[in-house]
């Protein structure tokens, strides 16, 4: 059963940056982009498991720090021609606080 869990105030995540949540399902990266949208992905690159939370965020994409794959923040798929997918989680912002469904 997944439920909404309070994570942190939005302002505690840097714009075009991320924070890591340690959960029973492994590390989850919460990203905030320049339009203050938030996204949550499993913190593992589909390529060789690199920590996506540590990558550079641009638009709705994050570039993995290890070998530069581009992963969509929206659905977790790698940008062509690379192929792969990482799990996405639902997130929402409610009165300036970020919630994660897990």
């Amino acid at each position, binding site marked *: 059963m997944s439920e909404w869990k309070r994570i942190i105030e939005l302002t505690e995540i840097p714009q075009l940056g991320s924070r890591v949540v*340690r959960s029973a399902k492994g590390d989850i990266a919460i990203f905030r982009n320049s339009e203050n949208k938030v996204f949550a992905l499993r913190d593992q690159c589909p390529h*060789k*498991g690199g920590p996506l939370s540590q990558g*550079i965020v641009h638009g709705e994409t994050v*570039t993995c720090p290890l070998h*530069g794959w581009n992963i969509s923040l929206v659905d977790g798929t790698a940008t062509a021609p690379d192929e792969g997918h990482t799990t996405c989680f639902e997130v929402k912002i409610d009165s300036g606080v970020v919630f994660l469904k897990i």
Partner: protein
Amino acid sequence: MKKMKLVVVGNGMAGMRAVEELLRIAPGLYDITVYGDEPYPNYNRIMLSPVLANEQTIEDIILNSREWYAENHIQLYTGKRINKIDRVNRTVTAEDGTSSEYDRLLLATGSTPFMLPIQGKDLDGVIGYRDIKDTNTMIETAKKYKHAVVIGGGLLGLEAANGLKIQGMDVTVVHIHDTLLERQLDSTAGMMLQKSLEAKGLKFLMSHRSESIVGKDGRVTALRFKDGTEIAADLLVMAVGIRPNFALAESAGIYCDRGIVVNDTMQTYDPRIYAVGECVAHRGMSYGLVAPLFEMAKVCATHLGNFGIGRYVGSVTSTKLKVTGIDLFSAGDFSGGEGTEEIVLHDAVAGVYKKLVIKDDKIVGSVLYGDTKDGSWYFQMLKDNKNVHEIRDNLMFGQSHLGDVGHKGQTQAAAMSDNAEVCGCNGVCKGTIVKSIKENGLFTLDEVRKHTKASASCGSCTGLVEQILASCIGGAYQPADTSSKPMCGCTDHSHGVVRENIRERKFLDIPTVMRELQWRTPNGCASCRPALNYYLISSWPHEAVDDPQSRFINERAHANIQKDGTYSVVPRMWGGLTTPDELRAIADVTDKFKIPTVKVTGGQRIDLLGAKKEDLPAIWSDLSKAGMVSGHAYGKSIRTVKTCVGAEHCRFGTQLAMDMGVKLEKMMFGMWSPHKVKFAVSGCPRNCAEAGIKDVGVIGLESGYELYVAGNGGIKTEVAQFFCKVANDDEVIEYSGAFIQLYREEGYYLERTVHYVNRVGLDYCKAKVVEDETNRRELYERLLYSLQGYVDPWAERAQPSKVRREFEILAI
């Protein structure tokens, strides 16, 4: 707002490339309609030769499938020929009456083979070589008939002849001149080529003028020459040149002169009508190779996309014959002429011939036969107008940037088997690259990197990949013009232009740069953002905003990310010196945080490998207490100053190498640079600190020091070049500081000193630093100014603060 309508006439390589570029930069701006008179979607015309040579099929060479048109909401009409443009009502009409309105019209009608106006040219079995239909005709004819004659010993003719031979026909090439490819090769190379083709079974009739074509029952049977002789022919392919298709444009009153005349923005005399491809005449030139057409397409797309930048200013082209087993490359003007010199290497036994034509210390032309591995290198220098004076003596022996490590020293792509590894970093074989180029229709190095990962990591196999690309797509391969290459896909501006704007217009943050220079993406990408951040902070120290989110993780976490997501921590040991207290602190930290590996690095530091990110602030706090600071082993920054023991202890020492090293390292603490910077100081010419492969190497002498610059260990070892001799420690600091500041101000992001110095020339650096005292002092002072007040990033993050929160893991 209602969408504008764009109609494209000509569903070929140039037209569709323009549409692809347009969709990329301004998706959704137009309702697009495409008319093509061939019954196929856009295909890779240059691959018709491999199709004829049985190396590929028609399906393989389709570039844009019908689904692609549908997905991009493009209305595609195939098999429909436009025969009327009504410029007043802005409509085009096809032969069958189909008609479309336009707001913008793009003409990309290509060209048609020129058919010699001789008797019998309309007989069955007399064809040109241009499209799928011609190719199929040849393949079918080969099944029933024996004798093929190709008129024209140019690229197209030879590729046709080679293919027909492979199809089993008996082939004779008839050429009007006495050497083949006379426009691309000089006579020596032409003769060598003819010999190798003869060895493949082709026959040649040189210096023969065709007079008429003889036929029977409506079909060709022979070709007759001016001297009265005849040769049997069941198939006659004319490959004597192409004529731009401009009749349609001309009939609509658009100004044409041997092509549709366009300006530098690819506009015709009717400003609503653009033209690209072989059908145009730009500054009096028409082109018959795809590389220039793609450049035109790109410029055209930026203007159609209301993004009015970019001009097409003409192209220098290069050629490569796509006949398997024959290596031939030609570029520029090799005919010689006033003021030119030639360098020639001819090894008849090995079948190698190379000629470079040089004018005013610049390469203006080159012909390579048998060994073409340096073709792209020469071509690059030709396009860049590079002064080759300094490297002239070695020019002929080629660029050994090919194959240092990682691919077993292989340098000749043609000789490699399909399963030979090309890219050692990513384990990519030649066959994989060839397949990807052909099937995905790749034309550039970047595309090959994206699709196969070959040469995408260390880059040492770039030359090999370029060769493979060139041999697959022939003259369509155009090495990028390094001086004006865009920074990345987010912009059309080059590094140089962006940097100049930042300096001249005093931009202080990334959003401003992106807005003013019209970035196409909302916040750039992982390649342009770090570059912009560096240009900003190096141009405007203490004023520009340093954006941590635009730095690579290592520079944000102040430690090196490892393959498993842990980090390595390298504390600074000034000049490679340490103390018992520091060693104790390191040992304690290692125990306390269960660091799995401790290693002495090549740069005389101690590396603690396998630290967890969340432990980093605490580790730094402990190290700080022992007086240690960040070693910046992770950054595009000053890494290490390596020293030998010098006159302090060594019996040969002439200068205090350790002391000098520590002073240099302290001067540069906290310095960010385009790429990493390493120094070394040796106390005497025995050079135990290996100063000869550093960005700046300092070597002590009785009478002072020698400075060497632009050396590099790594993928390709580059020996540092002698820069100047100085008298004392203060001068070492000022001269090397000034050199590094010059590099900081002018180097492109991710360009090492060796590449920077190769680009601008060592003499230029000497003029700025050694010969110009005032400039040297100013450079040095600007360096000191930008480093003023630098706070150790570790100490800063060891305290609880906003910059520290990045390291804290959240729990739920």
